[in-house]
């Protein structure tokens, strides 16, 4: 019976329930799209990583056969593969060809795929790449025999050269192979590449005595897929400790582990946005029911008089809401299912480079990865129904408190002044009528305004952040000058020894001669040279980086540097001592450091390794594009840290933002080796334009949907006000109110809600927006550096609110007219 009453009520209060349904529908859509986009961002990232990255967690080097047996039985190791480098093939110099054995598991862990054929099985079989053969000056097909000259490593020394014919058993796919060495991808045209020629186990065991075979034991730990890097690292080190594997023989695949790492702040961000959606839904649905409760009191009173229990009255309200949700949620899920894939691709483009977009589309549309997840549907249903339930708690409580006498006493649902008297207005104008109604319905008006304003404030706060994120500011913040040259540095890179910082400081391409030439280029105004000294710091560990650069700031930026200090105090001159550093505040995200702390840095200049204690003298905001590293000091201070040529970066200031001729002229001065990289302000600016455009689009789409949810409040309040006053309005019309006057009066009432919402949203939203801007600036979100009032957003909110209420008033006026005037006069609730 209760369900029947609820169902009848759902139909009777059709308009209100349609509005509630729209709010529930939109809530459901957002609650589905948000986690779907979030989860798939993570999943596609993992999918791409797993396709292209070597996926072992770590490898232990110099492992003998006995240890392989023990390790393979360890419970902490989920899967493993073996590799053994046994020598070098000659004839491809300056490229290097390593003769390597890998087993099938190892090939899998390296993500190595064969273009054709199989891994070598027989003693004379080999697997190669076409480019390796090319480097050897030959060509061959599967099954062909190639004659190779090689040296094997026996007893830790390279033995005499040998020659042997091998049958090509397989060709390794080049594009999808991450080099067997831990090096990054190599330039196609590079003359000194590193290749691997794979040999069989039989060959290995025949040529190398069993006791001399040393493997690389590549493995994945048994940690959860989404485990944090630290946990995996702990497991790796703990296993190594158990078996006495020295620290130097542990190689952790950081690239893979970092890439598989889910930033908890990303998950938290999605969760917070979902909570905001739920809050908007709760406020809106609650407000819709709250505003409509007055109309129901009499009906509920009658039911109470007929014997309904309090619990039953509550159930009537609850079941009606749940019935609406039962219709709205499936429609929402259907719409969200259709929309989410497209939303995801938009969102993906926002965060990822173009080169991956096609791959992601392939993965998504090729059905290679499940895009829709049952648990998200379940979560959506559960959270949306919970939202509806929470929204209805207060109306349910109100319903349960209705007494039997309400049915008799409450014969007029319109709000009447408690005093029964008030000072009359001498003249009655439309504005007076609107004012009397609004003030007479103070509670409803306040609930409507507050519930709309909550979303309005949120919209304004987000709009503040978005308006402060301008591509120009962000690019200016990232790049100092119009062109930047910086050293392309790597450490312990056998393939690129020329990029090693310890070598570069003895033959630095960013020398005075280059700077002089740069400044002579037509269109270049000046060039500023920054230095850098690379250090290791045990206290900071190697979680963020193995090497921490200490930037040398040239004297011309002394004032800028000093003005950017936010904590502590130090002058540029004091930083010349070489004993103090300033720290970028962004380092605080990683390290718990403060002004006054002292850190011991280990400097390896290629000639000697020594330690230097440096005090953090101040914290600096990472602004103005010159402070990319965690630590910095005066350029002269660097001289006291280490010798050599420490130039690291040249910031070039030109008369125009981008000039191809200037760019070409700069490029022409750079060495042929890839030891110097060039970056332009324009590139960074274009990247920000694209990113921020997408970001704005996605954010405003989200805010738009959220706003529609909140607009349901005013739609309901106004429909409700017209419905409840049907008879009054009829009477006013009988007394001579024209249709135009009716629409005007409704407009004036709507204006009140809109003005109230606008004042609160824009007032409070702007007030909250500024501290949020300061926070975003501090956290370097989107490179925000200067405050821009979100005037466009404020105007759009005002225009939308104004437009909606005008349309609403016109629609309600028209609806009111549809029923004959006499019927409205006779109307009694």
């Amino acid at each position, binding site marked *: 019976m209760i369900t029947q009453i609820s169902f009848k009520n759902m139909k009777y209060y059709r308009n209100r329930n349609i509005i509630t349904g729209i709010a529930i529908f939109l809530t459901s859509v957002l609650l589905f799209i948000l986690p779907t986009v979030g989860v798939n961002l993570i999943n596609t990232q993992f999918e791409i990583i797993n396709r292209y990255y070597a996926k072992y967690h770590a490898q232990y080097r110099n492992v003998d056969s006995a240890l392989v047996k023990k390790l393979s039985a360890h419970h902490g190791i989920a899967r493993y593969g073996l590799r053994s480098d046994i020598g070098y093939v000659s004839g491809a110099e300056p490229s290097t060809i390593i003769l390597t054995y890998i087993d099938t598991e190892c090939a899998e862990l390296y993500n190595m795929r064969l273009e054709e054929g199989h891994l070598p099985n027989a003693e004379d079989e080999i697997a190669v790449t076409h480019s390796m053969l090319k480097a050897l000056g030959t060509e061959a097909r599967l099954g062909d025999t190639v004659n190779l000259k090689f040296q094997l490593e026996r007893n830790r020394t390279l033995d005499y050269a040998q020659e042997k014919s091998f049958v090509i058993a397989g060709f390794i796919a080049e594009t999808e192979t991450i080099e067997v060495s831990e090096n990054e991808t190599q330039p196609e045209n590079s003359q000194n590449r590193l290749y691997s020629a794979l040999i069989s186990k039989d060959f290995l065991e025949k040529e190398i005595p069993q006791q001399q075979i040393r493997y690389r034991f590549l493995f994945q730990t048994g940690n959860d897929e989404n485990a944090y890097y630290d946990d995996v690292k702990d497991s790796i080190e703990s296993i190594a400790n158990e078996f006495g594997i020295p620290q130097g023989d542990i190689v952790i695949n950081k690239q893979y582990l970092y890439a598989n790492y889910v930033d908890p702040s990303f998950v938290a961000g999605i969760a917070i946005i979902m909570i905001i959606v739920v809050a908007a839904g709760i406020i809106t649905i609650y407000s819709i029911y709250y505003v409509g409760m007055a109309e129901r009191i009499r009906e509920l009173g009658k039911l109470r008089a007929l014997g309904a229990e309090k619990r039953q009255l509550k159930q009537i309200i609850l079941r009606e809401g749940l019935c609406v949700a039962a219709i709205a949620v499936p429609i929402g899920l259907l719409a969200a299912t259709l929309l989410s894939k497209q939303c995801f691709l938009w969102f993906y483009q926002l965060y990822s480079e173009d080169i991956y977009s096609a791959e992601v589309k392939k993965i998504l549309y090729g059905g290679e990865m499940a895009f829709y997840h049952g648990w998200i549907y379940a979560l959506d249903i559960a959270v949306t129904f919970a939202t509806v339930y929470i929204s209805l708690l207060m109306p349910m409580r109100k319903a349960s408190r209705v007494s039997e006498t309400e049915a008799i006493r409450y014969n007029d649902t319109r709000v009447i002044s408690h005093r*029964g008297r008030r000072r009359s207005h001498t003249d009655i104008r439309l504005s007076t*009528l609107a004012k009397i109604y609004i003030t007479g319905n103070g509670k409803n008006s306040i609930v409507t305004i507050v519930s709309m304003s909550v979303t309005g404030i949120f919209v304004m706060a987000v709009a503040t952040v978005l308006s402060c994120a301008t591509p120009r500011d962000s690019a200016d913040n990232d790049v100092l000058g119009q062109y930047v040259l910086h050293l392309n540095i790597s450490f312990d890179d056998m393939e690129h020894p020329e990029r090693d910082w310890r070598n570069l400081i003895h033959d630095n391409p960013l020398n005075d001669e280059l700077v002089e030439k740069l400044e002579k280029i037509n269109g270049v105004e000046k060039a500023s040279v920054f230095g850098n000294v690379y250090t290791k710091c045990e206290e900071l560990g190697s979680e963020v980086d193995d090497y921490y650069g200490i930037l040398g700031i040239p004297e011309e930026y002394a004032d800028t540097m000093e003005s950017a200090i936010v904590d502590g105090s130090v002058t540029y001159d004091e930083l010349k001592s070489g004993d103090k550093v300033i720290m970028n505040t962004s380092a605080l995200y990683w390290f718990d450091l403060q002004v006054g702390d002292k850190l011991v840095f280990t400097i390896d200049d290629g000639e000697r390794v020594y330690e230097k204690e440096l005090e953090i003298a101040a914290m600096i905001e990472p602004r103005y594009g010159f402070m990319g590293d965690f630590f910095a000091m005066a350029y002269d201070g660097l001289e006291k840290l280490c010798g050599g040529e420490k130039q690291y970066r040249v910031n070039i200031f030109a008369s125009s933002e981008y000039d191809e001729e200037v760019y070409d002229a700069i490029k022409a001065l750079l060495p042929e080796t890839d030891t110097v990289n060039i970056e332009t302000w324009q590139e960074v600016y274009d990247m920000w334009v694209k990113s921020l455009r997408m970001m704005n689009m996605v954010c405003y789409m989200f805010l738009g949907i959220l706003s529609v949810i909140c607009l349901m409040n005013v739609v309901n309040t106004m429909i409700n006000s017209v419905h409840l006053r049907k008879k009054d309005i009829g009477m006013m019309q009988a007394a001579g109110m024209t249709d135009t006057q009716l629409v005007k009066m409704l407009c004036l009432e709507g204006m009140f809600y809109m003005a109230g919402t606008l004042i609160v949203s824009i007032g409070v939203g702007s007030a909250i927006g500024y501290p949020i801007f300061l926070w975003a600036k501090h956290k370097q979100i989107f490179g925000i550096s200067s405050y821009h009032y979100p005037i466009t957003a404020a105007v759009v909110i005002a225009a939308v609110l104004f437009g909606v209420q005008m349309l609403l008033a016109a629609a309600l006026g028209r609806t009111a*007219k549809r029923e*004959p005037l006499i019927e409205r006069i006779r109307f009694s609730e």
Partner: protein
Amino acid sequence: MSTILKIQDLVKYYSTGETVVKAVDHTSIEIERGRFTAIVGRSGSGKSTLLHLIGGLERPDSGKVFIDGTDIFSLKSDKLAQFRRRKIGFIFQDYNLIPSLTVWENVVLPLGLDHRRVNEAQITDILEKIGISDKKNSLPSTLSGGQKQRTAIARALAVEPTIILADEPTGNLDSQTELEVMSLLKTCVNEYGQTLIMITHDQTIAQMADRTLLITDGAINE
């Protein structure tokens, strides 16, 4: 005396499923200015519909209603509303006061809608005559039935209409109040020289009228 109201072959039928109710059936009448006319008839005879048609609250199926020479149904919706607030005063059985407005505001509402400035002296005079001047700041919910109906009468008189249409104005009142309201109405009509058309099923009240029209099945008989 000149004709203030002229009804020509007025028809209004209602269809309720298969049955057609002839609420007003080819009715033609003329009413002179300044007269008190009572329309009597049984419940469901069509007297209320006739009054609503005269006041332009409903539109007829056919026929015409002329008030002071104006064919009211030739007017568009907004013009008809303007005409109504200037020329017609309504008094309903259930008062139809706006609950959120005070007595004063209810009375001056038609003037406000017509963008006319309120003549405070005139409205105070009406309220005093009607006997509710002490209630002018009260909300309708605090008034008795008689006071509510007096307020409705004051509202009808405030615009100095050409014609007052009263739909069983004493139907909800006790006999004592009924007599008071009726004598008040008559006095006001006489004093302000207005035309009063009243619907009633009470023969005693009908006898107070200058002219009585009997309506049976939508047709008028004098």
